[in-house]
């Protein structure tokens, strides 16, 4: 099996052999719900950070008991998975005020509505600022310190500055490897598809990082030599929040729109910015997590707009698809602003509303096909 195949397989299921091996050796796994959780702290504690997904969920019957029909479907599926015991491999859970849906999901855990696999189960809700300034960075450092201490107290471990520094190096390595992968996507014939990239990023959040970095290096060697796809109809940028279904991207790509870059949670936003390795670990982490390219939970729209426009240029994007989970207010307004800005500068842009499970396939096909035709018509008119 190639490295890419291994990574793709890892992303297909909620848990995977790497996690099973980790657990068999007595390792702890800490789930986290958002890219604003500093994984390095969990890693430095000798534990495995696991980015929460609901992969494999087929319904929300149990999750709906503690949510509503106006709750985002990712949260409903994830709650459902939790109530079915699908996350029993976790030893703890960390979240933050990513959005109204996630904070209430955490409340359900906090109120003990979910049977914890272990007792006492570690639960932590981080108070991450929504603004980007010196005061917010200082608060974030204070918050990370509290997070570190709570892990130490709960699991009776010590997280040294050296361990944190080493974790920062390990996670920066991951980020740099992913950036190398994105460099390949700038080619006229990118040797990797958007769906494969999404699988790779998902895998990187669900396995020991050293193991991932090794596989990633192999994978880069493998794909660098590949003949890339050049028969696509348009180069697309995929923008949005939670999207953990490579099948969704593949569907778009099968219609001829090659996804060459993104602005997603499982994507650029979570790895693009590095942590300064030469500074004290906690202040460096605080600075990176507050100043990183943001999502709409942060008061930072102009900078996001510039970032997207730069990516469009760098990756020679022909069109932007914004995928937005229904009932997500943050991405609802953000997608409107992205579309308004795209129109101003003449970039074709389409906003797709979706649910966690890709169900309305016919409608999706029609809209993507029409969008690709629009791009082609615009290109032929140039």
């Amino acid at each position, binding site marked *: 099996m190639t490295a890419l195949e291994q990574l793709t397989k890892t992303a297909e299921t909620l848990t995977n052999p790497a996690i099973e091996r980790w657990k068999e050796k007595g390792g702890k796994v800490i789930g986290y719900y958002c890219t604003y959780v500093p994984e390095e702290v969990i890693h430095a504690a000798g534990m495995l950070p696991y980015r929460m997904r609901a992969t494999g969920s087929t319904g929300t019957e149990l999750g709906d008991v503690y949510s509503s029909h106006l709750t985002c479907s990712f949260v409903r599926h994830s709650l459902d998975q939790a109530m079915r015991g699908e996350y029993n491999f976790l030893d703890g859970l960390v979240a*933050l005020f990513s959005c109204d849906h996630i904070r209430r999901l955490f*409340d359900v855990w906090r109120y003990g509505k979910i049977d914890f696999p272990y007792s006492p189960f570690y639960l932590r809700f981080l108070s991450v600022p929504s603004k980007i300034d010196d*005061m917010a960075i200082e608060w974030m450092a204070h918050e990370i310190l509290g997070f570190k201490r709570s892990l130490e107290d709960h699991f009776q471990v010590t997280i040294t500055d050296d361990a944190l520094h080493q974790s920062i190096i390990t996670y920066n390595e991951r980020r740099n490897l992913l950036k190398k992968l994105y460099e390949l996507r700038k080619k006229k014939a990118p040797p990797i598809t958007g769906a494969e990239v999404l699988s790779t990023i998902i895998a990187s959040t669900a396995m020991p990082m050293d193991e991932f970095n090794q596989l990633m290096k192999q994978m880069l060697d493998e794909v660098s030599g590949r003949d890339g796809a050049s028969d696509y109809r348009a180069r697309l940028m995929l923008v949005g929040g939670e999207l953990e279904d490579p099948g969704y991207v593949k569907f778009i790509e099968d219609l001829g729109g090659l996804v060459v870059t993104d602005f997603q949670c499982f994507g650029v936003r979570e790895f693009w910015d590095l942590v300064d390795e030469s500074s004290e670990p906690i202040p460096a982490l605080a600075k990176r997590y507050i100043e990183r390219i943001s999502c709409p939970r942060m008061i930072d729209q102009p900078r996001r707009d510039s970032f997207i426009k730069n990516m469009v240029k760098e990756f020679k994007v022909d069109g932007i698809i914004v995928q937005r989970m229904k009932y997500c*207010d943050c991405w609802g307004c953000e997608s409107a602003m992205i579309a308004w800005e795209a129109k101003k500068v003449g970039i074709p842009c389409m906003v797709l509303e979706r649910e966690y499970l890709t169900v309305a396939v016919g409608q999706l096909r029609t809209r993507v096909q029409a969008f690709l035709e629009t791009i082609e018509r615009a290109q032929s008119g140039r």
Partner: protein
Amino acid sequence: MADKYETHRQLLETYKRTQAQLAGDERQKARLAQAKMHQAWLEQIFNSVEMGRPIVYSPVYPELIYALDLQPLFPEAWELLPLRQDMYALCDSIDTAHEAGINADLCSFGKSLIGSLLRRKIPPPAMIVAPTFPCDNLKISYQVLGYLTQAPTYFLDPPYWMDADGAQDYWLGQFKGLISFLEEHSGKKMDYDRLKEVVEESNRMVDHWLKVMELRKMKPLPQGGIGLGGILTGQTVAGLPIGTEAMKMLLDDIKGRIERKEMAIANERVRAIWFHIRIPYDRDIWAWMGEMGAAVPVTFGEYSSIELIDTSTRETMLKGLAQRALEMPMLRQGRGAVSNWIGDCLHAVKEWQGDCVILAGHAGCKWIRGGYGILRDTCRERGIPLLMFDVDFLDPRVTPPEEYRARIEDFLTTVMAR
């Protein structure tokens, strides 16, 4: 500017007429107070528009803005007022926002504001102040307002857990940052003696409000729904003599009723804690519930643990203002964990002697939606009957009044039969 805010100018005339009609009628003091207050606020805004005084959009208490002689405009209140005359008054703004690409499932407060701005139905801001709470809708729709108007925008961002070490200082820092922001963009310097005067005036208003809410704990309820509306009052004219005067009239109204032994409804059989704001376009819902024997002593539009501010030093005053912003109705319940909201609901049931809880589930309030299951379990464990139904506070097309009223009626019938 198609109509120069014609709807609100018509409203202003209505408030004037109402005052003329009700003047001297002891039994209509509460309505009179409300009309006076809204008239004063709208007149100020129109004067500011004409005089070019900078308008500051702000859904938090306005003392700092008044002290700098700027014009606060609480956008949500601006949107709500026309609904009292025309239940469909905001549909055009909501539809405009949809057509512009705003998600249909966004809270209609955000949609109508964005739409009203696009339709020029609301005066544009020179500056925008907004909290990052109680919900995603507010945080993101105010970013859209900033985007559309290019007005400088300042967000007040509290820590999630306000009881955490350093949280109060961080929050105070946010408030001090707001003063710097207002000074920078208005070119004015805060006069702290003037601020003290404004805060002392708002203290007088709050003092009356707290007394009104205390008297509303009486059983049977002495004053009908007209006494409610704290959220509007506080956020439009707090710090102005008219705010104090209006709230004093409300207090006099309830005291007079108690003296005269007049009750809100003839035969109080059940007390319902309405733990969201009143449905703004359903003007006579409290009277309609009253006909069934149901009194509503408090909604979370009035529920607050707001306190009087110590004005003895600049620091105590700023701390008090910062704290007051956190304790505002809705902002208090919406920030942080679900326990804030549910805890307040249980407290309201106890203090205002509620027999049941009614939750009008506003379509836009995702932060409440995610707490449905926990609220239901909590009420069930305590034997508190609970009704939850879907509604949109600004858009009656979502759930027509006859539909939700039928559910309320069934529920109250069941509660009364217990």
